[in-house]
């Protein structure tokens, strides 16, 4: 991982308390205040949508719709983690898109994140390392895409974006036990997939 890249785990946003002011103003209809929240969470929202739906264009549509919906239904946010509340809208919108699509084969769900998330090489990095890293990232994304949706969602939220059990539970509307079991299965499954490409990570 280069120092220039931000890992997905870093896209968690600021502490909940700093959102309160913006949320209060946005509730009155202040779109400028709401757009502060958009600025804070759009990277996270987009990435979660991207991991769930697979392609960047659909993910962008889902993200935009989710923010518009969040603005319109701000009165339904009763406090707590705004991030969880927002991501709930994002994941639900993603599920809706996937459900309405004709079932696509896993192959076509090849996530193009590896291409969109261009890696910027550190000055001292060897070209071979960059290639290897990109290939590895592609394989991980490929593996993520093979996971069943409910397992993928938990893995993306907990391991990829570092949300707490509580937030994952709130976002997906499932209890703690379900979070843990889905996480366990997702990790094992991804691990099994990656085992085929051990040479990529042995280096």
């Amino acid at each position: 991982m280069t120092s220039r890249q931000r890992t997905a785990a870093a896209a968690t946003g600021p502490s909940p308390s700093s959102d309160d002011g913006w949320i209060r103003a946005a509730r009155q209809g202040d779109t400028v205040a709401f757009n502060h929240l958009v600025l804070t969470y759009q990277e996270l929202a987009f990435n979660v949508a991207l991991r769930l739906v697979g392609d960047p264009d659909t993910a962008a549509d889902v993200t935009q719709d989710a923010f518009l919906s969040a603005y319109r239904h701000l009165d339904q946010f009763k406090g707590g983690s705004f991030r969880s509340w927002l991501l709930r809208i994002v994941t639900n919108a993603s599920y809706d898109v996937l459900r309405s699509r004709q079932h696509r084969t896993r192959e076509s769900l090849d996530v193009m994140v590896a291409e969109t998330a261009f890696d910027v090489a550190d000055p001292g990095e060897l070209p071979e390392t960059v290639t290897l890293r990109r290939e590895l990232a592609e394989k991980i994304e490929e593996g993520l895409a093979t996971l069943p949706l409910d397992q993928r969602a938990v893995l993306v939220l907990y391991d990829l974006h570092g949300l707490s059990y509580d937030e994952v539970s709130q976002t997906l509307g499932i209890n703690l036990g379900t979070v843990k079991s889905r996480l366990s299965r997702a990790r094992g499954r991804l691990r099994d997939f990656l085992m085929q490409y051990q040479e990529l990570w042995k280096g």
Partner: protein
Amino acid sequence: MSEPVFVEGTGHVHEVLSDYLNGDLSDAQREAVQAHLQSCAACRRDLDSLRLTVSLVRQLPLAPVPRSFAISVPERRRHAWLPWLRLSTGALAAVFVALLAVRLILPAALVEPGPPAPAGAAAGYAASRPAAPTVVAPAAVARPAAAPATGTPAAQTSAGVAAAGSVTGSASVASGREAAVRPSNAVPMRAAAAAARPPEVGATTPGAQPAPSPGLGAAATPSLPTSGTQSRPASAPTVSARVAVPRAAASLPAWLTAVQVAVGALVVASLALLVWSSRRL
């Protein structure tokens, strides 16, 4: 939780390694796992690969946002067409009122020349004549029934279609018909005519709902520009509406009423749209 970490007597800890990595196990359970790992290579490999997988996932780079997802005020977009809607609704309403005025004035203007009509309508009248007597009775009966319902657009429309639809033709037919049935049906027809009239009058003067009685004729008569049996285009509408009498020379008023109905419908639809949009904003 205090359940044993070894699953189904296999003696291995695969199932709990994820929790173990997360630090979710109790002290006792964690120690049990660690003790097992020391002697079990398979579970150690399992743990290592799981740990590596998780760290690889955590190192995945973020995809940059393709664009800003800031929202623009949705309401402004709606407001863009709102003034146009208000303007067109007002214009349509004005057209509707103008058409209504035309429809009210036209019968009076056309009735003056009266006489030529009967001759011209002879052909059409002849066709309707056999049906006229039987028709008038139900018309007379239907009129009182229709009278209470004058408030409805349907009644107004039928009255409107009647009066405006074929002023010339209906006037001629009316006069012709009246001539034929006058002896026996003069009173009911007049009542019918009077009853038919108020619905129209009611359109412009709300509240003037007719009661089905001869007294209606007296009440309605003053409002008619020319009284007299010859000037009962309204009664013709009743019959023509019921019998679908071919309107001989009724070209202008026919489509005039149709246009007015269409404009009226558009006004209603525009108003509904305005109300809906104001609720949504």
